[in-house]
C-alpha cells in the first residue's frame, strides 16, 4: 500500500511537469537558502575566529575609551594614550611580557604616478611577534628603526604598488601622505581574515606615524601576558593599573572576549539569515498548497471513482498528503543539492573552508516534510470531504 501510494504520488506529480516544477521552485529556493546561509555563516565565522584564535588567547587588546581624534585634540598630553604610557605599563607590570602599540591611519600611499588609499600602521618592534606576522622578503621593523623612514608592506599592497611582490622592491621608495619611506620588507600573505586587513596595509615605525598623522594618540595596543597567567585576572590587574597610576580611561579586551563577541555577532547574523530563508520556505509551502488545490479540483472525478471503489476519507487524505510531502521532499532534496553546491562555490571564491553543518541538512529535510504536511493538509481535507456523488458528476 505504501509503495503504491508513493507510485501514485509520483505518477500524478509527473503528469503535469511544468506546474510541478514551478510549485517546487519556492521550496527549493527556500531550502537552498537555508543550507547555503547556514554554511556560509559557519564558514565565515570559522574564518573570523581562525584569525582571532591564531593570535592566541594570551593577548589583551587595549584602547582609549573615548574614540575620535577631534575629542582629544585639545586635551593635554597626559590625558592621551601614547606609546610611552603603554611601554611604562609593560615595565611596571611583570605579567606583561611584551607589548605592541599601534597608531592607525588611512591615507594615500604609493609611488610617483600611482597612488591609492590604504591603511598605514605605525608599529613597534614587537608588532610581528604579537600579531604572528611573518616576513616574506627583506626584514621587519625593529625597535632601533624608530628614527628611520623605513616601511614594510602587506603582500597585496606591495603587489598593487609594484605590480608584483618580490625581492626587487626592497630599497624602493614609497610615499605615505607626502612622506618618503624606503621599503625594507614585505609580509607573507595572511590566509585568515582579521578585522584589520594586514595584507593591504603599509607598516611604518610608530614614531614616524606620529609625524605622518600628526597625533601621538594610540589606536590600540596589544599586550602579551605571561604564560599560564589567567587573562581575565591580568585584565583586572591592568585595568586597576590604568585607573590608579594614570589619568587614562582604557578599555581592555581579552582575546576570549573578542572571540565570544565574534561568535555572538555571527549568531545574530545567522538568525537574520534564517528568518529570511524561513519566509521563502513559507512562500514555497504556499506554492505547494496552490498546486495541490488545483490538482484536487482537476481530480475530483478520480477521487469519486476511488471512493466508489472503497477508499474511505482517510485513505484519500493520506494519498493527497503523501503527494504533498513527496513534492516538498523532492523540492527539499533539490534545495539541499543547490545549497551545498552554492556553498562550495561561495567558499571557493571567498577563499575559505566550506563547512556544511549536517544539522542544516536534517533541518531542511524536517522543514520540507513539515511544509508538505502543513500546506498539504487543507487540500487533503478538502479532497477527503468531497461527496462521492458530487465528485463523480464532475466532467
Amino acid at each position, binding site marked *: 500500500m505504501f509503495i503504491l501510494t508513493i507510485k501514485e504520488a509520483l505518477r500524478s506529480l509527473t503528469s503535469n511537469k511544468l506546474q510541478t516544477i514551478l510549485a517546487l521552485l519556492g521550496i527549493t529556493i527556500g531550502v537552498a537558502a537555508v543550507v547555503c546561509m547556514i554554511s556560509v555563516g559557519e564558514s565565515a565565522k570559522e574564518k573570523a575566529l581562525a584569525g582571532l584564535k591564531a593570535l592566541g588567547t594570551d593577548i589583551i587588546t587595549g584602547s582609549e575609551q573615548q574614540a575620535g581624534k577631534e575629542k582629544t585634540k585639545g586635551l593635554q598630553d597626559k590625558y592621551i594614550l601614547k606609546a610611552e604610557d603603554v611601554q611604562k605599563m609593560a615595565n611596571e607590570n611583570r605579567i606583561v611580557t611584551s607589548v605592541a602599540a599601534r597608531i592607525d591611519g588611512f591615507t594615500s600611499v604609493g609611488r610617483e604616478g600611482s597612488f591609492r588609499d590604504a591603511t598605514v600602521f605605525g608599529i613597534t618592534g614587537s608588532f610581528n611577534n604579537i600579531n604572528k606576522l611573518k616576513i616574506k622578503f627583506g626584514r621587519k621593523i625593529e625597535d632601533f628603526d624608530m628614527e628611520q623612514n623605513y616601511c614594510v608592506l602587506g603582500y597585496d599592497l606591495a603587489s598593487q604598488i609594484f605590480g608584483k611582490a618580490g625581492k626587487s622592491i626592497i630599497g624602493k621608495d614609497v610615499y605615505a601622505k607626502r612622506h618618503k619611506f624606503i621599503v625594507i620588507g614585505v609580509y607573507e600573505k595572511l590566509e585568515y581574515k582579521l578585522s584589520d586587513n594586514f595584507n593591504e596595509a603599509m607598516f611604518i615605525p610608530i614614531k614616524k606615524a606620529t609625524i605622518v598623522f600628526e597625533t601621538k594618540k594610540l589606536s590600540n595596543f596589544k599586550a602579551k601576558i605571561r604564560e599560564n597567567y589567567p587573562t581575565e585576572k591580568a585584565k583586572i590587574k591592568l585595568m586597576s593599573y590604568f585607573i590608579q597610576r594614570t589619568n587614562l580611561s582604557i578599555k581592555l579586551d581579552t582575546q576570549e572576549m573578542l572571540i565570544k563577541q565574534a561568535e555572538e555577532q555571527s549568531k545574530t547574523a545567522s538568525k537574520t539569515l534564517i528568518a529570511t530563508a524561513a519566509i521563502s520556505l513559507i512562500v514555497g509551502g504556499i506554492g505547494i498548497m496552490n498546486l495541490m488545490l488545483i490538482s484536487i479540483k482537476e481530480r475530483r472525478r478520480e477521487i469519486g*471513482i476511488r*471512493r466508489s471503489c*472503497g477508499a474511505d476519507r*482517510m485513505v484519500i487524505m493520506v494519498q493527497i498528503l503523501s503527494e504533498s510531502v513527496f513534492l516538498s521532499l523532492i523540492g527539499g532534496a533539490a534545495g539541499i543539492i543547490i545549497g551545498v553546491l552554492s556553498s562550495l562555490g561561495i567558499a571557493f571564491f571567498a577563499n575559505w573552508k566550506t563547512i556544511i553543518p549536517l544539522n542544516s541538512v536534517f533541518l531542511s529535510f524536517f522543514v520540507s516534510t513539515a511544509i508538505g504536511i502543513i500546506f498539504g493538509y487543507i487540500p487533503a481535507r478538502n479532497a477527503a470531504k468531497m461527496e462521492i456523488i458530487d465528485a463523480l458528476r464532475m466532467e
Partner: protein
Amino acid sequence: MIELTNIVKIFKTPEGREIKGLDRVNLTIGQGEFLSIVGPSGSGKSTLMNILGCLDKPSSGIFLLNGTEVQKMSDKDLSKLRNKEIGFIFQSYNLLPKLNAIENVELPLVYRKVPANIRKKEAYNALCQVGLKERVFYKPSQLSGGQQQRVAVARALVAKPSIIFGDELTGALDPKSSVEIMNIIKGLVEFKKITVALVTHDMKIARMAKRIIKISDGVIVEDYINN
C-alpha cells in the same frame, strides 16, 4: 437482501428551493435478482441507484442492507461495504486515465489491502473473463468504448460483490458492444448468482432483466416480473 422503507431524497436548488428526488419509495431486492430500473430522465432512477449503491444518503426513510441500517454506518464502514459488497458500472466507464487496464481493475483490491501478487492475479482473471486478456496493459485512452466498459465490468467483478449496479451502462456504446456487455452481465446473474440492478431508459436493455421497476417523478409506478 435490500429493503427500502419510505425512502425520501430531497435536493436543494442553488436558489434554496427543495425538490423531491425520491418520494416515499418502498422496495425489496432479493439475492440473485436481475432487475431494471426504468423511467424518463429526471424521474429519479439514478438517485435511487446512488442510494442503493451507498454513494448517496437518503434524506429520510430506512435502508437495510443485509439487515444493517445503512444511514447509521460510519464513513469507514460504508467504504468497506462499497468495497466488499457493491460493484459499479457507469455510463462513462469511470476508469482512471493514468492507470492501465489491470491497475484499474486492481483498485478495489488495493483498498481491501490484498497483497500485490494476489491482486494482480485476480485482476488478470477478471480481465480474462470479460475477454480482455490481450489488453491487460493498455491505458483507457488506447481502448475502444466497448473495451473500456469491459474493464469497468472487470473492476466491478474483481471484488466478488454480492450486487452490481449499472447506470446506463450501454448508453455510450454501439449496438454490438452493448450486446456483448449485456451478455457478460447476464452470465454474472446466471452463473455467479450476483444481484444486478441496471438503471436505463432503454426498454430493450430493460427487458433483458427478470424484474422491471418503472419510476416517475420520484415514485415507483410499476414493479413487475418480465416474462
